């Protein structure tokens, strides 16, 4: 199952756990699975049907523009980061 790395500021919701293994084929599915175990996480990561504007997601070490739609596989490492931009 994908492993979601919990950002430090959110570990109060996960009883201090830094990594959580959850089922899911997309980032969205992984967040929904997290929400079932640790309610409140989705509200911090998402804004409506998208990632919150200040949040980006990296899957297997690469930043993804697909956001919630980014596919993940059984070995994926999922991390949530501050969003970045270009000029």
């Amino acid at each position, binding site marked *: 199952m994908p492993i979601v*790395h919990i*950002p*430090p*500021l*959110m570990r*109060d919701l996960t009883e201090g756990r830094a990594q959580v293994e959850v089922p899911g084929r997309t980032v969205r599915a992984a967040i929904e699975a997290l929400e079932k175990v640790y309610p409140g996480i989705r509200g*911090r*990561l998402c804004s409506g049907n998208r990632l*919150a*504007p*200040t*949040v*980006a997601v*990296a899957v*297997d*070490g*690469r*930043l*993804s*523009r*697909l956001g919630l739609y980014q596919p993940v596989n059984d070995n994926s*490492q999922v*991390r*949530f*980061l*501050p*969003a*970045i*931009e*270009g*000029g």
Partner: protein
Amino acid sequence: MKEKLNSTCSQDYAIVGSRATRVDAVEKVTGRARFGADASVPGALVGRVLRSPHAHARILSIDTSRAEALPGVHAVVTSVDLPEVPPDAVELEKPARDRVLASDKILFVGHPVAAVAARTPAIADQAISLIDVAYEELPPVLDVLESMEPGAPILHESLRTQSLGGSGDVPTNVASHFREVKGDPDAGFAAADVVIEREFRSAMVHQGYIEPHAATAVWADDNALTIYTTTQGSFAVRDHLVELLKLPMSKVRVIPMEVGGAFGGKNSSFIDTVTALLARKARRPVRVVMSRQETFLGTGPSSGTVIRVKMGATKDGKLTGAQATLFYEAGAYPGSPVGSGAHVMFGPYDIPNGSIEGYDVLVNRPKVDSYRAPGGTPACFAVESVINELADTLGIDPLDFRMRNSVRNGTEAIDGTVHHDIGAIECLEAARAHPHYTAPLEGPHRGRGVAHAFWGNWGARSSVTITVNPDGTVALVTASIDITGTRTTTAMQAAEILGIPLDRVKVTVGDTDAIGYADVSAGSRTTVATGHAAIRAAHDVIHKMRERAAQVWGIDVDSVSYADASFRAAGDPDKVLSFEALAALLPDTGNTVIGVANVDIQDWGVSFGTHIADVEVDPETGKVTLLRYTVVQDVGKAINPVQVEGQLQGGATQGIGWALFEGYDYNDQGQMRNANLLDYKLPTALDLPPIDTVLVEVPYPGHPFGARGVGEVPIMPPPAAIAEAIYHAVGARVTTLPMTPAHILEALGVL
């Protein structure tokens, strides 16, 4: 599309890699290029914007009657002229609407309040002066740390801090807060032999593009809007207009003009909506061109910052821990590049333990926008200054220190991203081998410094079509605005695939009705992503022309090959058609051939840059003279080396300006004292030595030619390289940007 895309990174090419003349060069140097203010629309009125003289105020009333009564005035607009929105959307849409025209509150000097359209500039200026606005002045907050303190004036009563630690529950100026941790920072510092901790400040700066924003709006009788504008993204402008004016996309056509500099500052739309509102109300075309003062006050400069950095290393020069706290000005609305700054600041280094914390903070200044490596330059200044001080303290060569700690393929960064196919070490080695690094530097008060930087670049969405003309020339249309010469690099990549000379490719930037979608030309993405699109479109052309040749010869398409600009039938040497010859047959064999590609590039290469600076400092006046400057950068495969060199020199020049000259100077009422190019000093050719460039070509295999973005990383190293050179010249460490003579004399203890 049937052709296989080969990653042919290390090969020599016929066109890619050549020093080609830019396709837009002649028009620009002869003055024939048409920029935003050159849009020629018969009957266009002159538009002007009334802007607030106060940094923080409530609007009590706006009376436009005297302006409306002035002969020659055709329209006056305020926020009430924006389309109504449903009650449940009012709060959500208020920030975007208030940035166009303030409804109830002023948040910065220069905040638009009203606008007029008149027959002549003089009448428009007079009309502006006749608009009566009653303000209730409020105390402004201008400093990023003061804005976070309890009791600071609050810009938005409804704002709560967004944080992965939860949402705040009191009114605040802190829009967001994040923290990333890797390993155990405290243990890391405990293991260090030397720990350096410093605080750095940088002033708000402007992108300094020569061409101010300009827009001309025309409405048709069927409520269709056409807008000519200067922008980095015509589709971004279209999306902005559609959202604010509540129009279907098919009713908005954005025609991009040539851009006279942008650097991130034209990602956002500042006057397009108000121009459209004026034109609709006046029932005449309207042109609005910003003045230089308006450009400083009413667009999106880059954040002023406070950054605290603490780093520890062993006596052998191995980094054991790093910590940073970043406070970035967002301006009047949320959205500073603090996340980007955090992402790149420790990017060049493999540090086992670290943490980064960032705050996005509102102040009564213009909302900030992107500026070439947004957020990166002040963060790089802070980290590289501490790295240099660590190397000095330990007596280790500064480039050796960096190499001992450099990221390599497979290194995991503090934020969890993993590096691959990078040129960090190659860059550092090339800098160390450069003659500048070991050249004698004789004379009093002279010093040398280095700095190194990382930028992530970007991919995203681009569209290209290639139409084959009957004479064998091709018309390439791209959706990507050309702010850096990307029409040329796009054409070069298409010509290489097609096997035809570059001058047989005519490139046009299409408007939003003419071509598929493109994201803004920003993030060092265009040569890479639009290049991908051009390559795929060219392959699509070849595939379709192979089908046509097969049709002409009456054979299977799999028997037709294409090489050396000719189509050949397998096993029949008499059946050969050049690209030109087959093009001539297209009109009579089923019409022309158009290759199409719409891409969303998810895989792109990152960049590293190393700079070397020599300075001389006058210890009596604090004046810094730049003696010699070298830029080394891994640029992937340089599609056009001339243009890449230009990007390195241009980026370094802007970084030098950021280091030594530039900064918004406010009085305590939030009024900018230097909103002109005499007092806000941009570097000129008189301030700079020739800038040497070294292109380290580490190809990125995710691009067919190995290209990677180049435009942003070169702005980041100059402040730290120059600060270190100043230290070696006169023994003072300057931690405030710009490093003006006054700041240098303060650091020397003279002032």
